[in-house]
Structure formats: structure tokens, C-alpha cells
């Protein structure tokens, strides 16, 4: 009996896995068709570059994959964490940009902190800034019943405008009409990762990001606190009846989610690659791109690691593909179709189950006769 249950559990997981593989295959196929229509001559070559791009220049490309994956891994984790607690955190762009600004500000202005620990201080400060920015919608939801989606959208714009003003007032570089960049000696150290992935922009940030994902998984699934957060997400009334403080749950889940987004912004701008904060009124794409990462990762913190790496991987491939005059937008088209097809998961599972039930019935029928 026990074995049978184990087998079933295994099958449920494997079904999810198989249906995501189907979604990825369908998405890639769709992308290929688009390339084929746009540029029939180079389509096969383009597909090859897309699929192998992450290894195209060996370790360098792979290091680049990690570099691109980190920010969206964090914003994806942010969206996924809030999702598990029943809130749709569409405020990641605002939290991300607040974190990024705080990190750059601390790195450039706080000279009294020695460089060896400066990056740690920056990351923590950025995380707190992100958390603060997510607490606003959380408090408004908990005490005034304000829809989180709308307050997050408002906070995105408020954050973006405040950051622009903050840059102009403190760390503005008039020659480029942007912020100063964080110099390499103050950036997150690579701790030898640059030896393994030479010439790439990799740094220790990838390790921090993965550790945070694992930490989020542990909070979510192995602690009483995480259980309370999830319970409030599933059914706030029942959670309240069971003696949980649902207001506290909402605020804390948003704050933690915001912390992750803020850290994402810090890691992106402390990479030592000369990345600067713009003063144009555009929300950072890394923020919204957290939503697809979370969805591809089934809102599971561990899933976010793989989803972000996957999107980073095909983005690197897409960059190489531009040499064939194939517009890089095809990457977003592919990711969008993969997400769309992943919404068929339930449907594909249903087909699986129907097939299985039929089989089982025929077996049972055989036993009876």
C-alpha cells in the first residue's frame, strides 16, 4: 500500500515535469516557425545557436547565463513567494529599482565601510529598501483592504520617480545623464568563480541568489511560520479562526517578497560591469520578468532557480542569434509561448488521468471476469 502511494506521488510530480517539457518543446517549435517565416535561409542555423548558445563560447557563455539569470531569479522568487501567500506581487519593478538605488548609493557614499564587507552591507540595505517598498501595499491591504495589485502598480511608479529624483540629488553623473556606476573594487567579489568561467561577468551573486531560493523553500515548507503564511493565502478566514494573525501574515509575506526583489536589484548593479541607473521614466524590465520566471517555476522557490537559468540560457543564445539578422525579440516570443503552453498543464494532466483511468478500468474489468 505504502509503495503504491509513493508511486502515485512520483507520478504526480513526473506529470508536472513532463507537461512543462511539452510546453517548452511547443514554445520552441512556435519560435522556430516564426524564425522560419521571417528568415527561412538561416532558420536552422538560428535554432542551433538558440539551443546551444549557452555553451557557444564554452565557459564564458555559461558564466553569462548565470549573470543574466540572477536578477530575474530574485524577482521571480519574490513573485513566487508572495503568490504562495495568496498575494500577486506585481510591484517587483518598484522594489527592484529601490533596492538597486540603495545599493549603488551605499556603495558610492558610505566610504567609512571597508571594501571587504561593503558589498554585504549594500545587499542587506537594498533588501531592506525593497522590503520597505513592499510593506506599503501589505499594510494597505491588511488594514485598509486596498487591492494589492493596484497599490503595487502605484508604488512602482512612485518608487521609480523617487529613485530618479534621488539619483539627481546624490549620485548623478552629468556627462552620461545617468548615475555613476559602482567601481569594480567595491563590487561583489567573484571568489574564484571568474577562474571557472573566464571572461564572463559572473560573481558571487549567483551563489547568494541560489542560497536565498533554498532559504525561501525552507521557510515556506519546513517552518511553522511558512505554514501560517500559506494557510493565510489559502483561506484567510480559516487561518484567523485557527488563531493566526492574518494581518501580520500579509505584511510579512509582502516584506519578505520585497526583500528578495531588492536584493536582486543590488546584485545586478553591484556586478562591477559598469551598469548605471538611468533617469528615464521606464520601469525596469527585470521586475516584470520575475512574473514569467515564477510561473515557469510553478511558484516554487527551487523551480525559480531552474526557470531563471533557462530564460538566461536562451537569452544568451538569442544574443548570438542577432548576428544572423534575427531580431532578439524572438526570445520573448518563445518565453511567452512557453508560459502560454504551460497554462495547458492542467489540461495535459487531465488527458494523462483519463488515459490512466481507462487503462485501470480495463484491468479491473479483467479481474472481475
Amino acid at each position: 500500500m505504502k509503495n503504491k502511494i509513493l508511486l502515485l506521488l512520483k507520478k504526480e510530480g513526473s506529470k508536472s515535469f513532463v507537461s512543462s517539457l511539452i510546453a517548452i518543446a511547443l514554445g520552441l517549435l512556435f519560435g522556430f516557425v516564426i524564425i522560419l517565416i521571417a528568415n527561412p535561409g538561416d532558420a536552422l542555423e538560428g535554432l542551433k545557436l538558440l539551443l546551444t548558445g549557452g555553451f557557444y563560447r564554452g565557459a564564458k557563455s555559461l558564466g553569462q547565463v548565470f549573470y543574466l539569470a540572477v536578477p530575474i531569479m530574485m524577482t521571480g522568487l519574490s513573485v513566487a513567494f508572495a503568490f504562495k501567500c495568496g498575494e500577486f506581487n506585481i510591484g517587483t519593478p518598484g522594489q527592484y529599482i529601490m533596492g538597486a538605488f540603495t545599493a549603488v548609493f551605499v556603495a558610492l557614499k558610505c566610504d567609512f565601510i571597508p571594501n571587504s564587507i561593503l558589498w554585504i552591507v549594500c545587499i542587506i540595505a537594498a533588501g531592506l529598501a525593497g522590503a520597505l517598498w513592499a510593506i506599503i501595499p501589505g499594510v494597505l491591504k491588511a488594514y485598509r483592504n486596498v487591492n494589492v495589485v493596484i497599490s503595487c502598480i502605484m508604488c512602482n511608479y512612485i518608487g521609480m520617480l523617487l529613485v530618479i529624483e534621488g539619483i539627481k540629488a546624490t549620485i548623478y553623473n552629468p556627462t552620461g545623464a545617468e548615475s555613476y556606476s559602482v567601481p569594480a573594487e567595491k563590487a561583489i567579489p567573484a571568489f574564484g568563480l571568474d577562474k571557472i568561467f573566464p571572461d564572463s561577468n559572473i560573481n558571487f551573486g549567483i551563489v547568494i541568489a541560489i542560497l536565498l531560493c533554498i532559504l525561501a523553500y525552507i521557510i515556506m515548507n519546513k517552518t511553522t511560520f511558512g505554514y501560517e503564511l500559506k494557510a493565510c493565502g489559502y483561506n484567510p478566514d480559516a487561518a484567523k479562526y485557527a488563531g493566526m494573525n492574518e494581518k501580520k501574515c500579509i505584511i510579512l509575506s509582502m516584506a519578505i517578497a520585497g526583500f528578495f526583489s531588492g536584493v536582486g536589484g543590488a546584485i545586478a548593479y553591484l556586478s562591477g560591469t559598469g551598469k548605471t541607473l538611468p533617469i528615464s521614466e521606464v520601469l525596469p524590465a527585470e521586475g516584470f520578468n520575475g512574473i514569467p520566471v515564477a510561473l515557469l517555476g510553478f511558484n516554487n522557490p527551487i523551480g525559480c532557480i531552474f526557470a531563471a537559468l533557462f530564460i538566461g540560457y536562451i537569452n544568451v543564445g538569442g544574443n548570438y542569434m542577432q548576428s544572423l539578422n534575427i531580431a532578439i525579440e524572438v526570445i520573448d516570443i518563445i518565453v511567452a509561448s512557453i508560459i502560454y503552453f504551460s497554462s495547458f498543464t492542467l489540461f495535459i494532466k487531465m488527458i494523462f488521468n483519463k488515459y490512466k483511468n481507462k487503462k485501470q478500468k480495463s484491468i479491473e474489468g479483467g479481474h472481475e471476469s
Partner: protein
Amino acid sequence: MSIVYFLFAQTLLFAIPLLVVALGGMFSERSGVINIALEGIMILGGFFGVFFINFMQTNQIMSGQALLILALLVSGIVGGLFSLLHAFASIHLKADQTISGTALNLFAPAFGLFIAKTIQDGVQSVMFENQFRIVEVPILSQIPVLGDLFFKNCYLTTFIGIFILIISYVFLMKTKTGLRLRSCGENPQASDAAGISVYKMRYLGVVLSGFLAGMGGLIYILPISTEFNCNVAGYGFLALAVLIFGNWKPWRIAGAAFFFGATKTIAYTYTSIPFLAALSLPATAYKLIPYIATLILLAFTSKNSAAPRAEGEPFDKGKR
């Protein structure tokens, strides 16, 4: 007095696209389907509308207001078709409604830019000539005050927007189909028991929202630019906010859109308003007004917000 007319015209430029798109979102959400894809649908609708105008103008086939109306139809139809993807996933496949919405949001700008770059040899913006401004409507512009407010230096889209508002109200609140559509967003099981096809109603809601959002994309870009970069500056998400702010009701949505348009107008024109310019605050302070004011208003009005009860839930016949 002329400054008042100018500010009013500006307010309408901001408010009308928000109004049209938010009304679209209203149909979808009142039928029980969350539509966060409004932004994407706006972009794709706007893109094809602008592309249509570009094609007609460069080949000199058509021009003027007739072209505008046709282009609006093109945008609307593209938006409606595009939203079918969302409808199919969230109604038939019972998928999580944020998933397909996000997919559409990601897909639309990428697809538009990809087509533009492929057709125009790497140039991503689609150009068009703005020949749609009406300097003066004959006769009507002679009405004192009202004539200056509505019928001088205006766009046909303003009247279309107001027309859509009235039609939407009548359709949703006063017709049998509207009542049925609303019932599917509140208690689909009861609607089903009463013999209403929940699937059909929800498809209707989503496609209507796609049609209006697609049109909204073109309405947004026409008066303010002469090129389209597959970017509507977050108006789709703002429309979502207006929809929630407007409590899912047509007239309150109109009020919310107008409020947002007015505060945004202050943010961009404060230098020409004497007493605001005299304060000499940084520009950012004014730009923050629409968002902060919305947050504060929401904090005081959200206690009895009335979202459709079955919103976001896939319809399951067997559930009670």
C-alpha cells in the same frame, strides 16, 4: 479662460484611453475572468492599427477621419482575436488566469517589434502622420463654454470614448445579456442552473475586453505621437488600477479615469498653471501626485470594495 480649455483637452487625452481600456477590463472581470493582459492587448491592437494607418498613408489610399475609424476597427478586431487566446486558456482549459495574461503581456511587444524590424529592415518604430485633429466642429463649436471645451481642437476618439461609456453602461446594467454576464462573475453555478451558458458569457466578456483594449491602444498613441514603438507606457496596468478604483462600475470607472487624467495633466502642465508654477517645487513632486492621490483615496474607499465574487475562478460545474 483659455488655460482651462487647454487643461481640459489635456485631461481628456490622458483619460479617454484609460476609460476605454478600463471599460474593456470591466466586461472581462464582471464575467469572472481576470484580465491582466490589457497592456499586451493594447500594444498589439495599437501596433496593427498604426501599421494599417502607415500602410494607407504611404500608399495614399485613404486619409482623414474615415481612415481613423477603419484603423480603430482594425485595432479592436486584432485585440479581440488576441484576447481569444486568453479566453481559451482561462475558460476552456481552466488555467490560472494570471498565467495566460502574463504570456500575452510578454508576447505582444516582442511580436510587434519583431514584425516591425523584420518588415522595415531593423527599424523598430512604425511612423504615421497625425492628420486626425479636428480644429473645429461646425455649428457645435459655437455653443458657449461647451463648444470650447469639447468641439475645438478635439479628436474623434474623445466622442467615441464617451459613446463607448454610455453603450457599456446600457449593455451591462440594462440588458438581459448584461445581467447574465454579471451573474457569471458572481455565482456561475447558479447561472448555469438557470440555463445560462457560462462559457459563452465569459467568452463574450473577454472578447469585448480585447476589442476595447485593442482600440484603446490606438486611441492612446494617436494624439500624442507620430511613431509607435510597441510601448504604451504602462497604460494597460493603469487601466487595471482605474478599473479597481472605479469599483467595477461604469460611471465610477469614468470618474476614476477622469480623476487620473486630471492629476496627470497637472503633473505635465504645472508650469503653465500660474499658482503651481509659483511654488517652484521639483517636477517630480507633481508627477507623484496621480499615484499618491490614488493610494490615499483607495485607503479611504476600499473598505467596501465590491470585486466580482467568482473573479479568477475557473468555472467548475460540479462545484457548489
